[in-house]
């Protein structure tokens, strides 16, 4: 049994800009537990979203190593990284609409998410768990932002991903909607799925089982 779903060693991310190289993440090392809710906390520009993209295998770090369930990803080809993402990773974006396919209904969004991972979605069961029963045939645009974001986590659930990562999942929502999303997150974490969230929402940070604080791209003690 792997204790840590993700292990990060000396990871740094630099970007080239017209003004020269900018370091977004600076030599971060951390271990993400295989259970519970892990929060990457920090103010805007602290590098938490960049680090989350690296953790979700969406972006290659400039240097350092990332292990997913004990498997090193640094030397993996793009194809192999895609394969890992397909089977093991679910990423939830900040904007609710970015996580769903607008021209598919709610049920098909769940089915599409599961299909991508080679699985079959128990649509009604997932919707029930999300508190959205009977909405399978709804158009995505008919849902509120909070419902859409919960559905996004539902998609992650339907994928049965090994780890769920989310970037500021409550930042675009009103308080009531954000509360519902927080419930969903807590529910996911309780269900045994490791969840990694980048956020500066104090309520979300308060739910964290594990917390890493970032400032200017570096971890702070």
């Amino acid at each position: 049994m792997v204790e840590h779903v993700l292990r990060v060693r000396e990871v740094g991310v630099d970007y080239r800009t017209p003004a020269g190289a900018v370091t977004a993440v600076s030599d971060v090392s951390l271990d993400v537990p295989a259970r519970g809710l892990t929060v990457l906390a920090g103010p805007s520009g602290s590098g938490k979203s960049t680090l989350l993209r690296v953790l979700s295998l969406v972006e290659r770090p400039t240097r350092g190593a990332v292990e997913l369930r004990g498997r090193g990803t640094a030397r993996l080809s793009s194809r192999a990284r895609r394969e890992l993402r397909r089977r093991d990773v679910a990423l939830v974006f900040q904007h609710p609409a970015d996580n769903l396919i607008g021209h598919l209904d709610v049920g098909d969004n769940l089915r599409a998410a599961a299909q991508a991972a080679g699985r079959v979605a128990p649509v009604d069961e997932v919707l029930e768990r999300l508190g959205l029963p009977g909405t399978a045939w709804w158009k995505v645009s008919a849902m509120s932002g909070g419902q859409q974001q919960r559905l996004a986590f539902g998609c992650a659930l339907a994928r049965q991903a090994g780890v769920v990562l989310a970037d500021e999942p409550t930042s675009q929502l009103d308080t009531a909607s954000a509360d519902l999303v927080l419930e969903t997150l807590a529910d996911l974490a309780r269900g045994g799925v490791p969840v990694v969230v980048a956020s500066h929402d104090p309520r979300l940070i308060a739910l964290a089982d594990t917390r890493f604080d970032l400032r200017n791209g570096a971890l702070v003690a």
Partner: protein
Amino acid sequence: MQIPWRAAPRAALSSPLTLLVSVVTALLLSFVVAAAVMHSAASGSAAIDYQQDRLCTEALHPSLEATGVPHEHVPGMVRAIEESVPDRAPLIGTYLREQRVDFGGRPTDAKFGYRPGATDRLKVLEGGSKDGLWVPRSIAETTDLRLGERGMGGRLPPVTAIYADILDPLPGWWCSERHFVVPNVLDRDELATAVVWLPSAESFAALPPEIAGLTDVTVRFPADPPGTVDEAAALLAEGTARIAPLQQHFNRTISLLDLPVDNARQTVTNVRSAVLPLTLISLLIGLAGVATVTVQWAQRRERELRLLWVRGAGPFALGGRGVLELGLPLVLGGAAGLGTARLLLPWYAPSDRLPPGTVTTAALAVVVVVALSLVVAFATGALRTHRMFQVAQRGNRLRKVLAALPWELATAALAVWAWNRVQHSGLATTPRIGALPRIDAAALAFPLLVVLTAALLAARVARWALAASHRVRLWSKPAAQLAIRRLAAGAGPVTGVLLVGVLAVGTIAVGAAISGSQRTALEVKSGMYTGANSYVQIPAGVTELPEALRGNSTIVGFVKQYERAALVVDPRTFGDGAFPSEVDPALLAQPLRVGDVPRGEVRLPGLPPIEPDAWVPSLPKLGRSGWVVPVDRIGDRRDVGSWYVWSSKPLGEVTEALSAAGVKLSRNVGEKEKAVQGLPFLTIQWTFGFVAALGAVLAVVASIALLLAVEVRRRQNALSGAFSTRMGLGPAAMLRSHLVELGAVAAAAVVVGLAASAVSSGVTVPKLDPAPRLTPAPEVPDVLPLLVTTVVGSVLVVLVAAWIAVRAVRSARIGELIRG
């Protein structure tokens, strides 16, 4: 297939604009390719059509002629012919030679003939019963012959009709028999006569032995005129096989379609190779359009694509997602393009008759093009998503490399090479008499390469200028300053529209100029060659024109000795009948040197010695070499080689008028339209006519691209317009600003396109001369109407685009403006 891919075709409906643009792009793309296939095939049909207009319809099928057949052998020969070609009834004409015949009145020569159906195609003046002799008016008047009279002491059938002599130009049924039915009076004087027609083959066989001498026999096989090269080739092959067993009995085989079929095939090859370069360029532009549509699709679907990518889909799968969404519109557009090309065929092609299989070939070409479009959409989608997600931070190296490559230098080098071909080979030489010159496609590509170079250069200069435009400070004229900033912000689309716009205007202008120059050159060269619209040789004694020809005709004498030629003209009437030329009528009252003949005294047979002081550069018939003598300097008109009536009237009216006035005519007649083999001119005209049509398609592409570019940045226009309005920019200034912005692009396209085409066609037109031995050389036609049309069209497009832009500002909703 996973759900997002399976649902992709339905997802296309969520963006009607992308759907429409995809359909239109594929439509134009496949139209260009299908039209190129159909146009070149149709040019073969047009070439056949043009050539058979100059041939005798009844002799298009290979035919036979025998001369000097003993009269008693004719019935057996006719029977044998009919039996050996049972599948197609031959039309057999039998003509005796001229004989002195006693019709009872003044002695006359006459020739007897029989051709089934002849009496159905004559103009009856008296009588009309078909059971007796049909006598031409010329003989009836000479011998004072009347209906019912029987010649040769009653041994000939009675005269039952008097008909009007057959005159040039002959209708189709008579055309092949011209040699036998139109007497060449001037050649053989009074001996030559028109034909006295017998009512039947039996009556022809039963003619009294003293007039039944040697007989000329013609065997024709009337056939429907072929409409296409394949039909003509089939008629020729079939006819050749049919007459082969009969040939040994005949001393002439006439196979008029031999050369036309070769010429038509050469025309197809010429046109196809000549339109190929621009078709390929248009194809590339069209495929670039497909790539642009796909890029826009990828931008619009970025959220979904990113989601699928995060979930593990690779660039190829995402490229496939694009094909599934854009594929159906592209296929539908391709089919619509094929249909449009077929429907508009009469509009852009020289003939609407296509050889069998052409539409299939065009459809195959469209299938290939649509497949290419799908490949481009797939590759663009895959590359775009690869760049958007997989290598997002690395920068667009490929685009930078492509933009940095000096494409215009490459096309300029090609243009220089093509110019070299124009200079050294041009249209090349004809392989045999009457055949077409082999047109050098590389030479014909020269003007297009110049236009393409100008377009690429204009696009590069525009890109540089827009990159440097941030230095421009025109805030005292905010409309202009904002226009420049908007242009700079949309540098990519702007240079793209400019490139296609220059290409469109340039190709339209080049196409119109060169095709127009060839049309005019054929007209003028033909006129200069014949001297008039129509001419008829007349006896030297005719000095007065019939009433019907006064004011539109003139009498001209022509003398030729070796390469030296002179005209004897009537200064008063020369301008009435001669092909319009720029000669001052007063000059014609004195002897003239024409063109490059040397000074000094000249002596020509039948003319007094002349030593002209006056000079003109050219004159109809003489071209740029010869002399002119006023008719009042001539002593005896009979000493002059030959005399003609030159007329601006059609040939039929001239022969009719002269015949009615009792003037004896010869077979030496002609018309301007049929004097010069016009196919080489027409080939170039058709080729560049199609170039102009492709230019029109490109103009549509440029216009749509401009309108779309404005519509696509609707929100930016609305935002910037709203801000500018808050800052005090009035509605009129805003409209002015958009007019300046869009007008600058359109004006640059028009100016550069017209300038490039003026230069390239200006130097090319005189070189593209299929008949350099005939004067004058082709000239660029008046381009003012084209200029006006282009400017008006551009202004309309700019007005519509500006209206769309201003409407975007006025109709923008608050929610739209504050959306993140």
